[in-house]
């Protein structure tokens, strides 16, 4: 997608993407590995409501 955008838009988007990518890579190392028996967040809280 970046190559289809005008240069200022592409540069701005790339800066934002790189910042997000860096934060996400740090986050992924904390993701639990066996969550499959956990209920989904949304349905769980909505049930409580």
């Amino acid at each position, binding site marked *: *997608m970046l190559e289809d*955008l005008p240069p200022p*838009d592409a540069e*701005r*988007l790339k800066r*934002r*993407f790189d910042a*997000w990518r860096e*934060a*996400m890579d*740090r*986050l*992924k190392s*904390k*993701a*639990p590995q066996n*969550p499959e028996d*956990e209920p*989904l*967040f*949304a349905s769980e*809280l*909505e049930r*409580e*409501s």
Partner: protein
Amino acid sequence: MRSQLDRAQKLSELNAFISLLPDEAIAEARRLDGMRRRGEVLGPLHGIPVTAKDLVWSKGSRTTSGSKIYADFVPDRDAPALASLRARGAVLLGKTNLHELAYGVSNVNPHYGTARNPWDRTRISGGSSGGSAVALASGIGYGSIGTDTGGSIRIPSSLCGVVGLKPTYGRVSRQGVTPLSWSLDHVGPMARTVEDVTLLYEAMTGESDEAPEPPKSAPLRGLRVGLHPRYFFENLAPEVDSSVRSALGTLESLGAAVVEIDVPEIELQGACRNTIAFAEASCYHEKNIRTRPQDYGDDTRDLLRLGLLVPATDYLAALRVRRVVVASFRRAFEDIDLFAAPSTPAAAPPIGASVLDNGEELRTGLLRLPGPFNTTGFPALSLPCGFTGDGLPVGLQLAAAPRRELLLLRVAGAFERQSSPGRSPAV
């Protein structure tokens, strides 16, 4: 009703409204007056003027979502949140301004104008429910329906000196409310006082407070209020820090015990929430961002394009991490009843500023303190707790475990009675 509509028109340069509904409001007020004369009263909201953020669908009147894309959208039904207020006699005065598609915190809207802060018109209202907060702070309407995906009720409430409640996720229906990020979106009430927010919350949910009246001398005795120094009290503008610490002293004077608490996984929540919001928002708006990019403001277009670049694997990893964050907050609430924190790390910045008084980038800074309670879905509210030397409001944020909204409102009410700043902007 006419005086409220006149006031809204007189203060039109604040850009609180996208649409005023004078004919509909007057007709409805007349109908309700007739009912009252016959002895028929629908409840405590009978004849009370209210407003709704313009992404809350209103039957027969346009609902723009603050966007050019939906400029001519006229819903064929009310959102249940609005219908519940109307059923109890509330009268809709108009639809309030918001950050485009609720996707931002400044309420600088390229299509419908910048909502201006009534305490200083050169400053932002905060967003995305900025028009609702501006209307309330200016004395227009007694309540409003806002939405909150990363702080969008609490941020403008804090910056404009009003009260806003983000209930537990799902507690107030999101039906008939244009989504931003469906697993982070919350619908909730805003008003000038805690008592009015409570009335609106009760009308929206059917829940009411039947707890016995607390003792007058120490109404919060036995309550444990958690303070998280590392995350919520670092890098605050000095006047925010002092106002909120003074508010903690007030809670102690009312009988509460303030204790320090840690939530080890709290640092994860920002990237987690961003990833979920980016992916969900771009999923909902995908067709339009691909085919009509020129119809979005620059910041909204950038964020929607960014969301198209988020891989499904990262979205799913963020959902997994959210479970870790939720579990961490649940453990914290085993030791405390409430969290207390600032709502925002600084007061309202000037329109066009890219950083806050504490040096943080605008968007990151304003989302940092309210955001954790969107990631978790736990209820949180903002209420005024003081002013800066420039006369700008400062907000105190209180948060609780799921479904403890009434506790939040009771504590906020006790605080307000003890310390109400009791000022209005000179509009």
